[in-house]
């Protein structure tokens, strides 16, 4: 566990949601709070680069966040550092449902397509 579990921060118009550590149903309230749609207008970066385990609690939250972002015309990108998380999306049948990046700069370039 880290000291920044579920930390959320904003950078100008970009919403950054950062989750770390092992994310499972035991932390479902924290996960749900972190992934709640924010009432802002910028693109959203979900930084999961320091997540070492996730279950479908996270996937369900990401799906809700993505649906809300789509309704608002906002781009959303996932930053994933662990191959296990990418495989989790694949097994859930959602490999193509998200813009997934393994480096922050490329993710921000994708997200800037809307915010610029």
């Amino acid at each position, binding site marked *: 566990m880290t000291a920044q579990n579920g930390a959320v921060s904003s950078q100008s118009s970009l919403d950054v949601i950062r989750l770390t550590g092992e994310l499972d149903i*035991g932390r479902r309230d924290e996960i749900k709070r972190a992934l709640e749609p924010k009432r802002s207008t910028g693109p959203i970066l979900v930084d999961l680069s320091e997540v070492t385990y996730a279950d479908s609690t996270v996937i369900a939250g990401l799906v809700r966040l993505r649906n809300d972002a789509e309704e608002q015309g906002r781009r959303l990108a996932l930053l994933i550092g662990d191959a296990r998380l990418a495989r989790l999306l694949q097994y859930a049948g959602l490999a193509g449902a998200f813009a997934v990046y393994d480096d922050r700069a490329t993710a921000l370039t994708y997200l800037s397509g809307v915010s610029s």
Partner: protein
Amino acid sequence: MTEHSELRVNRNTADAETPAQLRHALAAFLNAIDIEPSLRDDIIIAVGEAIANAVEHAYETQEPGRVELHASTDADNTLLVDVYDRGAFIDREAREGRGLGLRIVRAIARAVSIDTEGGTRIRMVFDAALRQAQADERRARDELAAAQSDGAAT
């Protein structure tokens, strides 16, 4: 590599650390029987979903109870994992955005069965043949074959 190995552990669903503790126990068991790492990680993902299912419906319908994890290997390199609780089975597939857990389990396990008699038992069967030593042996064989193929091509 064909000896019988077994893990049996249970925890209370009310404890937020229960899913992680059960996963960590399973990871230690899989390491001890020398399962190939990527297969080990996939098994942990699948079993983690079964644990999440147990924890979630136990919280929703009644007082939190025990969730049990039982893993065992057979002589034919089959790994059998049961996740069992005494709560009522909830059909999460009928809910918006849910049903993902069982989909993930089915994508990874060779076979899955759900018994809801007197509780919920999710039984998962995995092909554990890809143990580390065998994976190493196969990799060495593949590299040798590739080297021989390269030699034949030149």
